[in-house]
């Protein structure tokens, strides 16, 4: 290994901190650049990928990285901590946001005729701030720091939803904001109670102290309810479909792929690292039941939609339902063969591949909306000939969302299924298989229109092939995640909490 590279991945270089600072700095510069902000897209995307790769290499070589910001150690200071889970999240953030930035250059840059809109001015700072909030959630080792990351995410994501300024988009944005603000207050209340009982908010220090007393129980219940509202987990999912369907396509991709995953990462840390002892079988089965209901109801609602973006948004509700199945299914030793790796690893595979596939699908849908002017599924006939690359991307992403091999979605569902059978909880397996079949149902419907012959009058707008290729790239990555699953699998074992191997209940 060259000496320079070894220096770069030594723990002395705080890549975890840089991964947060970089997008926030880009946001500031974008705000100053105004109409030229779209020029930041390519440099920021490349730098983000490089920083995520360097941070991951650092963790792979040196184990969990811990940074005491400003030299102040916990419990007084706030630690940044990067483990395998954080790295996986950082990598997906970098990949998806790079795709989103490259795709958005045409829609939010200067138009070919030189005209400009207000949208371009606000889109780029908001986009970079959202990415900064996501990165902050990936690397924070402190509950209050996580709260700040969550809030940054909420405020910027809501603004992205309402960016079009149409009444429907504004209504969706305010609905999302009210849900999210309620969620953040519940989270903050829980944080206060945890601080009262344990005198610290550092996740690692709390892990040693958390017990099953009533105060901790209340705190975890409040925080879980708040995070479920922010992550749109059933039954608090009502805000998601209108919000994600009315945002501009690149923003939808980021929102659906990543923004709802941030709160879930905090839920994983809360339940598996801080308070694994409070998850009784009753609680775990209850959370799993909510997830199962989310899978079934989200899928059924997706089947009934007539607008492409709403189908994709309801599909997100369904796919997020799988995340809650981690609570009853966790367990299984990571020391053994990968196929007994257990549900904790499986769920992160599922979240990563969903992020890549869903962003690809929203970008492909964005290209289709540009081509026909709206997103009625009936009007999609024959788009497959006009936008072959976007259609192929849609199909590949659908393969991953349905959980067909060899995609990353298959790896995640396979790990979950084997955990379900190994622990004797076959009923979760039934739900997962049913969810996969329903996903095939609601995704084949737009696909059949895409591949049909075009009979409808009207001209189609040309969408540049290079932009369609971005969607294809993200979809291909979600397939590659399944083909090359050993690398991410080993990464996830770094800093894996003990409860992930032993199970919660």
């Amino acid at each position, binding site marked *: 290994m060259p000496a320079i590279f070894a220096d770069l991945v030594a723990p002395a270089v705080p890549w975890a901190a840089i991964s947060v600072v970089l997008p926030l700095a880009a946001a500031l510069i974008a705000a100053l650049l105004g109409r030229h902000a779209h020029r930041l897209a390519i440099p920021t995307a490349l730098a983000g990928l490089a920083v995520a790769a360097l941070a991951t290499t650092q963790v792979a070589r040196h184990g969990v990285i811990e940074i005491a910001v400003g030299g102040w150690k916990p419990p007084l200071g706030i630690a940044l901590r990067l483990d395998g889970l954080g790295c996986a999240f950082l990598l997906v953030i970098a990949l998806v946001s790079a795709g989103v930035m490259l795709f958005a250059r045409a829609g939010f840059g200067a138009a070919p005729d030189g005209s400009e809109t207000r949208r371009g001015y606000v889109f780029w700072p908001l986009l970079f701030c959202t990415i900064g909030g996501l990165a902050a959630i990936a690397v924070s080792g402190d509950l*209050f720091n996580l*709260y*700040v990351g969550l*809030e940054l995410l*909420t*405020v910027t994501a*809501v*603004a992205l939803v*309402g960016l079009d*300024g*149409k*009444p429907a988009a*504004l*209504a*969706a*944005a*305010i*609905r999302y*904001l*009210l849900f999210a*603000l*309620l969620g*953040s*207050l519940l989270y*903050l*209340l829980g*944080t*206060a109670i945890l*601080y*009262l009982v344990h*005198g610290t908010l550092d996740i690692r220090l709390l892990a040693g102290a958390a017990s099953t007393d009533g105060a901790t129980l209340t705190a975890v219940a409040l925080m879980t309810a708040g995070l479920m509202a922010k992550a749109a987990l059933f039954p608090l999912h009502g805000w998601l479909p*209108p919000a994600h369907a009315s945002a501009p396509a690149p923003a939808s991709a980021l929102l659906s792929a990543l923004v709802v995953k941030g709160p879930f990462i905090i839920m994983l840390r809360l339940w598996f690292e801080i308070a694994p002892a409070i998850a009784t079988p009753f609680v775990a089965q209850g959370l799993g039941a909510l997830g199962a209901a989310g899978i079934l109801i989200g899928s059924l609602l997706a089947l009934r939609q007539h607008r492409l973006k709403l189908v994709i948004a309801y599909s997100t509700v369904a796919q997020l339902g799988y995340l809650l199945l981690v609570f009853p299914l966790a367990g299984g030793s990571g020391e053994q063969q990968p196929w007994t790796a257990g549900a904790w690893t499986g769920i992160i595979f599922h979240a990563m591949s969903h992020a890549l596939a869903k962003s690809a699908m929203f970008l492909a849908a964005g290209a289709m909306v540009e081509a026909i002017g709206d997103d009625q599924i009936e009007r999609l006939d024959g788009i497959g000939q006009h936008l072959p690359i976007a259609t192929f991307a849609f199909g590949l992403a659908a393969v991953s969302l349905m959980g067909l091999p060899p995609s990353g979605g298959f790896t995640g569902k396979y790990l979950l299924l084997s955990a379900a059978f190994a622990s004797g909880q076959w009923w979760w397996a039934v739900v997962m298989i049913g969810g996969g079949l329903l996903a095939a149902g609601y995704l084949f419907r737009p696909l059949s229109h895409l591949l049909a012959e075009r009979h409808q009058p009207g001209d189609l707008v040309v969408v540049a092939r290079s932009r369609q290729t971005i969607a294809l790239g993200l979809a291909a990555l979600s397939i590659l995640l399944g083909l090359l699953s050993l690398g991410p699998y080993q990464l996830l074992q770094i800093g894996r909490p003990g409860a992930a191997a032993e199970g919660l209940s």
Partner: protein
Amino acid sequence: MTAPVLYGLCGAALVGIGLYGLVAGADLLRRILGFNVVGSGVFLYFGSLAARHPTLAVDPVPQAMIITGIVVALAGTALAVAIAIRLHDETATTRPPGNAENRDARDLR
């Protein structure tokens, strides 16, 4: 009853009142105010935690967090009000979508 306990109970009461306004309020502005009342309650409760020990000095960490929390609540409120104004300009309604029609029919008279 010591002062911190009283403050804590007041905070809890504010959270309850604000939560009702946030969930059940028919008017957008009322919901935004409800959010602020919940926030104030949480901050008051948080502040009462600072007096952890009757004889020791006050714990500064909750105070630092309250200040951060106030900044966040301010930003959230500003954004909510801005969107509510835009929504009003566009549609001349200040009701959140979905539950607007049936409630508070007396306003229509």
